[in-house]
């Protein structure tokens, strides 16, 4: 009976918190996010589909990671889209819709987080593949390398969270900037390993770099407050969208050339 009472109090408290969160978000913001996530899902899955066609023909390992990146980005954005839909439903403030949001919010966030994590690992694998492909002969070593990158990306996230909790957002952003420079050096070594010495200024490459920057630098909106934070957050989403469009344009062009 005590447990039942405890559960009832907890669920009541949870419902209150959820309804407060729902009340603080405007319908226009939710609909804008809904549109944005739907677009991102569509674009990411389109890139995945086109890259899969090229991969099935050339079967280059680096390209496999590249296509998987967009599959996971698509999936992550899909979970965020579902979360946004549930949020929109909860705007009606019926008890059932608030319950649905309370139950699904954390699992959807976790699923989206896992997919973003996998997307980042695949992105890192695809840009560093040329550098390591000669040394990773056996399938087992390739698997170990992937596990190593998973661990590295996980550690990166954990360190970022710990720094932002104990030292504050500005230090956390400094850490992200350091990691980003490290990744840029990795990209550079990858290019050098195949004899490329000139700087690549091609828009598709820059689109990929943009996606990298946004994935690893993270959203800096927590550093700011109020309207400017919202603005930064929207700019972040918009830039991600631009990166997707540039990459899709390039992939379409090359799938036409390679598959005809």
């Amino acid at each position, binding site marked *: 009976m005590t447990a039942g009472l405890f559960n009832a109090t907890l669920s009541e408290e949870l419902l209150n918190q959820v309804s407060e969160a729902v009340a603080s978000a405007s319908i226009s913001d939710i609909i804008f996010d809904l549109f944005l996530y739907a677009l991102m899902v569509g674009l990411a899955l389109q890139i995945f589909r086109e890259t899969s066609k090229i991969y099935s023909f050339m079967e*280059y*390992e*680096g390209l496999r990671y*590249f296509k998987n990146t967009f599959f996971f980005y698509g999936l992550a954005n899909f979970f965020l889209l579902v979360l946004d839909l549930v949020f929109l439903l909860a705007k009606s403030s019926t008890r059932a819709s608030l319950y649905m949001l309370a139950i699904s919010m954390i699992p959807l966030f976790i699923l989206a987080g896992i997919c973003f994590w996998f997307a980042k690992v695949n992105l890192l694998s695809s840009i560093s593949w*040329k550098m390591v492909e*000669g040394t990773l002969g056996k399938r087992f070593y390739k698997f170990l390398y992937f596990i190593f990158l998973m661990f590295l990306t996980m550690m990166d996230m954990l360190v970022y969270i710990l720094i932002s909790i104990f030292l504050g957002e500005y230090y956390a952003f400094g850490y992200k900037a350091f990691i980003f420079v490290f990744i840029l050096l990795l990209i550079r070594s990858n*290019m050098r390993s195949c004899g*490329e010495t000139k700087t690549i200024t091609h828009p598709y490459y820059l689109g990929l770099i943009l996606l990298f920057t946004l994935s690893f630098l993270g959203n800096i909106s927590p550093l700011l407050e109020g309207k400017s934070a919202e603005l930064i957050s929207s700019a972040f989403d918009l830039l991600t969208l631009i990166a997707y469009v540039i990459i899709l344009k*390039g992939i379409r062009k090359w799938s036409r050339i*390679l598959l005809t």
Partner: protein
Amino acid sequence: MEPYSSDMKPFQKRSRLEIIQDILKVIRDSNNIISPTKLQRLSNLSYQMFEEYLGELESKGMVELKQYKGKRNVYSLTQKGKQFLDKYEDFVSFLREFGL
């Protein structure tokens, strides 16, 4: 026979893709029929590497091992292998444009 991967710097290691291209080129330039020993020698690979690459190319359906005049084993390109070779330069440009 022309040197393979001639645009490379001295001492630069060939990438996996370049090695595959070299193997396919050697087969194509030998009228699409070549013995395993000659193919290994002309593609500049150790026995172990050669076995590994040819195994991969066979499993991907780019080359096939067949009998020549019912006696010797020879390698030849499949349709997929020929298409790969035709599109190789384009594919390298594609990878370069994306920095992959």
